[in-house]
């Protein structure tokens, strides 16, 4: 029992650390898209680690936690994608991109929604 609790506590601490890393990444990375990698992916790993830890601490909850982990896995990338798409549509630019195929393919890329509406009205 003590070993299970110990393993569970280690997973919980790992989860908290990964969540903390996600937060630090938001400050370290230069633009909104890179920040989303940190806040989205690393924080997802943080939550998954916490879920694994909870499964060790409360083995009876395992089926529910399994489903919870699955929902987190399914929904978290979708949330990151939605925020990134909103940033792109609002005209947020990357900082010093090496290559940008979106700007190449879309004529009015990075034109904010307000500007686009103003142009249409004019």
């Amino acid at each position: 029992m003590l070993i299970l609790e110990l393993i569970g506590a280690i997973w919980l601490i790992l989860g908290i650390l990964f969540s903390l890393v996600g937060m630090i990444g938001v400050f370290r990375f230069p633009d909104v898209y890179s920040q989303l990698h940190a806040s989205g992916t690393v924080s997802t790993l943080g939550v998954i680690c916490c879920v694994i830890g909870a499964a060790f601490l409360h083995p009876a909850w395992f089926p529910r936690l399994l489903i919870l982990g699955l929902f987190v896995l399914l929904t978290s990338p979708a949330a990151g994608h939605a925020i990134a798409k909103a940033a792109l549509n609002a005209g947020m630019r990357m900082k010093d991109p090496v290559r940008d195929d979106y700007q190449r393919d879309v004529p009015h890329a990075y034109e904010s929604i307000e500007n686009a509406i103003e142009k249409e009205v004019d």
Partner: protein
Amino acid sequence: MGFYLFSSLLISLTWLGLTRRYSIENFGLGLFLGFVLAFVAPQKTKIPAIHIPMMIVTLLLYIIKLYIEVFKSGILLTRRVFARETGLNTGIIAISTQDPSGSDWVAGLSAHAITATPGDMVVEFSEDEQIMYVHVLDMQASQGYLDPQQKARLSDLYTILGRAIPAKGKK
């Protein structure tokens, strides 16, 4: 029939997990609820019942792969966050979905899997949903593997979706 069976099996297993009452009656109730939900679902595909075991096995392996990718991704990003220089070569690459049927399911699941992989995130689709615009943290690394990875992913997705992907616009 296969679509109803596959959906209701997944829903009934979820039902068992959520209610934590592991009995034949409760499984039957979950199966019934699954059938009802599958019946009212807007998109119906014809899946031969014989493909269902393979679909479930591939789905489970696919989920395990996704978990591994999330772990790899988290560790890679943690290393970048704590590196003295983050060493980012960011950019947006256009990647084809490589799916001739133009299925929304394939496009959505491909985007989801790419976002779960280390250092890549789908930010936008082209209007015909055939091109995904992927924001990458390391351009040199991502350029090489994104296309072959998508090809491999596509075969998994075809199996999971029962090799009967509805053509775009069809209901």
